[in-house]
C-alpha cells in the first residue's frame, strides 16, 4: 500500500485546486473545473460499488439524475432553499439506491447489469411521463440559484460555485478514503472476490452489497443537486448513455481499486475532451481519440492511472527467498 505517499499527493492536489480561482479569472475555465468536480464525485463514488464491491451497477447515473430532479423540484416547485435542496438530492438518491439494492443484493455479476440498467430506464420513463411534475422531455429551467446571505453566486464569474464544487469533492473524497481504509471497505473486497469464504467469516454478503450501493448514492445525489442548481436546469439527458460511458471510463482509467484514481481521471478527461472540442471539424474524431487513449491506459496499466503513476515510482518487488 502506497497509502502515505498517495495521501500526500492528494493533499497537494487539493491545496493546488484551492488556489486556482485566484489565478484563473476566466469563467469558462472555472466552469470546466466545476464540471470536472461533479464528474469526479460521480466516478469516485461509483467506484465504491463497482470497483470495491464488484456490483456491476449500471444505474449509478440514475442516482445522479434523481439528485438532479430532487433539487430541481424541491427548489423550484416547493421553493425550498437551494442549499437544502442540493442536500435533499443525496437523501432521495440514497433511498432509491436502497430500493434498487433489494433485488441487486441477491444477483450475481452480469445480471446486476440488467437489473440496474432496467432501473435506470424505469426512472427515465417516469421522468418523461410525469411531465406535469418534471417537465417531461422539456425539463425544468430557471431554477433558483445559490445565495450566501446577501452574496449572489450569479454574476461572480463562477467564483462561488467553484468553491462549492471543490468542497463537495473534498468531502466526498474524505468520506471514501475513510470507508476504504475501514475494515468495512476491506470486507467489500472480500465479498467481491470470495462470497462463500466471506460468509464463512461472518460477513453478510447481501448486507455489504446493499450498504455499498446506498453509500455510493449519497454524494452522487448531492452532486446531482449541485449540478442542477449550478446549471439551473434539470433535463432528462442526464439519464443518457453518453454521461454513463464517460463516467464509467473515468472509473476504469482511474483504477477500480483506488479511491483517488477516478478523481484524477475525471479532471484529466474533462480537460482533455474540452481541449479538443475547440478544433473545428474534429467533433467526431475527438471521441475516437479519447476512446483510444483510454484503451492505451487500460493496456499499460490494467489497474488504472494511479497504478501507472505507482509503476513509474515504485521499484519492483524483489524475488522471494
Amino acid at each position: 500500500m502506497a497509502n502515505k505517499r498517495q495521501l500526500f499527493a492528494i493533499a497537494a492536489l487539493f491545496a493546488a485546486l484551492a488556489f486556482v480561482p485566484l489565478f484563473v479569472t476566466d469563467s469558462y475555465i472555472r466552469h470546466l473545473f466545476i464540471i470536472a468536480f461533479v464528474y469526479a464525485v460521480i466516478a469516485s463514488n461509483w467506484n465504491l460499488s463497482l470497483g470495491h464491491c464488484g456490483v456491476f451497477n449500471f444505474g449509478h447515473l440514475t442516482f445522479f439524475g434523481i439528485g438532479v430532479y430532487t433539487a430541481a423540484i424541491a427548489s423550484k416547485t416547493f421553493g425550498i432553499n437551494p442549499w437544502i435542496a442540493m442536500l435533499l438530492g443525496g437523501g432521495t438518491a440514497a433511498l432509491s439506491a436502497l430500493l434498487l439494492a433489494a433485488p441487486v443484493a441477491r444477483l450475481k455479476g452480469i445480471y446486476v447489469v440488467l437489473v440496474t440498467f432496467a432501473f435506470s430506464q424505469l426512472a427515465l420513463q417516469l421522468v418523461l411521463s410525469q411531465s406535469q411534475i418534471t417537465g417531461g422531455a422539456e425539463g425544468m429551467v430557471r431554477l433558483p440559484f445559490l445565495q450566501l446571505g446577501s452574496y449572489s453566486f450569479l454574476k461572480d464569474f463562477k467564483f462561488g460555485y467553484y468553491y462549492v464544487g471543490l468542497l463537495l469533492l473534498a468531502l466526498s473524497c474524505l468520506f471514501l478514503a475513510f470507508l476504504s481504509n475501514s475494515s468495512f471497505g476491506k470486507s467489500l473486497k472480500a465479498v467481491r472476490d470470495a462470497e462463500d469464504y466471506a460468509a464463512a467469516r461472518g460477513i453478510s454478503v447481501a448486507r455489504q452489497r446493499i450498504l455499498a450501493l446506498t453509500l455510493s448514492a449519497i454524494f452522487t445525489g448531492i452532486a446531482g443537486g449541485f449540478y442542477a442548481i449550478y446549471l439551473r436546469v434539470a433535463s432528462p439527458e442526464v439519464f443518457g448513455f453518453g454521461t454513463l460511458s464517460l463516467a464509467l471510463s473515468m472509473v476504469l482509467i482511474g483504477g477500480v481499486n483506488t479511491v483517488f484514481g477516478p478523481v484524477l481521471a475525471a479532471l484529466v478527461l474533462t480537460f482533455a475532451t474540452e481541449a479538443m472540442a475547440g478544433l473545428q471539424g474534429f467533433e467526431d474524431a475527438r471521441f475516437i481519440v479519447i476512446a483510444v487513449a483510454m484503451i492505451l491506459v487500460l493496456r499499460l496499466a490494467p489497474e488504472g492511472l494511479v497504478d501507472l503513476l505507482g509503476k513509474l515510482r515504485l521499484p519492483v518487488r524483489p524475488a522471494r527467498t
Partner: protein
Amino acid sequence: DVIKLGILAPLTGPAAADGQEMANGVKLAVEDLNKAGGVAGHTFEAVVADVGDASADKVATAAERLLGDQATGAIFTGYASTSNFEIDMMAEQDMIYLVSGNSQQTKDIVSADPSRFSTVWSLTPSYDAYNTEIVPVIDELATSGKLKLPNKKVALVASDNPYSKGIANGMAEAFKADGWEVTQNDLLPFGEINDWRGFLAKVRQDPPALLINTDYVSANAATFMRQFMENPTNSLVFIQYAPSVPEFLELTKEKSSGIVYNALGGAVRAASNPRADEVIGKYKAAYNVEPGSYGVMLYEQVMLYADALGKVGDPSKRQEIGAEIGKADKQTAMGRTRFDPATHLAVQGKDGMPIQFYQIQDGNRVLFYPKEYAGGEFKQPVWMK
C-alpha cells in the same frame, strides 16, 4: 477587425444531420458577407460549438466556450437544448442569441420579463397555427370537392416530446370544436420507433377520414408511411414536419406520394417570395445538397444580425444591436419577418410568417395553401377511393 459568430449545434449524436446544416447555413452567410467586404468595417468568422447529445453540461460548456471568447459577436442556433435553458446564460452576458426552434420554451422564458432578454430573438413563430390551421384547410378541400371524405373521423398519434404532444393535443381540440370525432389520440415514447403496426392495426379497425402523425423524426415518419402502405385505409395522411426533411423523399420514394404536411418558419418557396429560392440555390451551389429548413433559417439569422450591426456599427454595443434586430421587418426566405416584443418570437400569420400546406406529388413538394403562395393544386391520394 474580425467578429466571431458562434454556432451552437448538435454536430454529433442523433441530431447531427440538423447540426451540420445549421453550421453550413452560418458559414455560407459568413462567406457572402465577407465577399461583400464585411459590415461596417468588420469581417466575420464562423465558430462551431458542439452540444452533442444536448445534455445540460455539454450545452452549458459549449455556450461558455463561445461566451468566454471576447471576439464573439453573436451566437446562432436552430436548437441547442430541449429546454432552451441556455437563453439565460446568453441574456446574463448580453450576448446576441438567435434561435430557430422550441419557440414555446423561448416564449415561456422570455415573456416573464422581455426587457431582460433584449438580445435574444426567435425566428420561429409561435406554433399555435399548427394546432388550429389544419381544420379550415381540410374543410375547404372537402367543400371544394378536391378531397372526398368518407366520414368526419380523425385519428392522431404523437411521440412523447413537447412539440409532437402539444401539436397533437391542439389539433384534437380544434377538430372536436369543428364537430369531428377523434377516434384515436395515441402517445408513443420519444425516440426510434420501428413498428407502427400496433397503432395502424387499431386504425384499420375503424378507418378515419384523416390520419395524423405528429412524430417529427423523419426516419420514424418514413417507417410509418411504409407500414401504412402495406395495407392502406381510405384516409388522408398528414405528417408533421418530417416530410420537409430532404431525405424523407429519398427514403420513402413513391410510397409518400399523396401525403400532406405543413410548415411554419421554414423557407416559403413561392413566386411571390423569390428570396427563398435564392438562398436555397446558394446553399445547393455551395454544398450540392438540398437544404432542410435549418440551413436557410440560420443563413437568414446571420443576415438579420448583419443588418442590425450595420445600423449600430459597434459590435460591442450588443444591447443596441439586439434592439435593432427586434425592430427588424424584412422579407426573408421564411416570408415577412418581424418580432413580437412581448415574446421575442417571430410574428406568425398573413402579415408575418405564413403557415404553408404542402402535398407530396410523385416526388415533388407542392405548396397548395395559402393561395398567395400556392404553386399547385391538391390532388386526392391514389390509395383513397
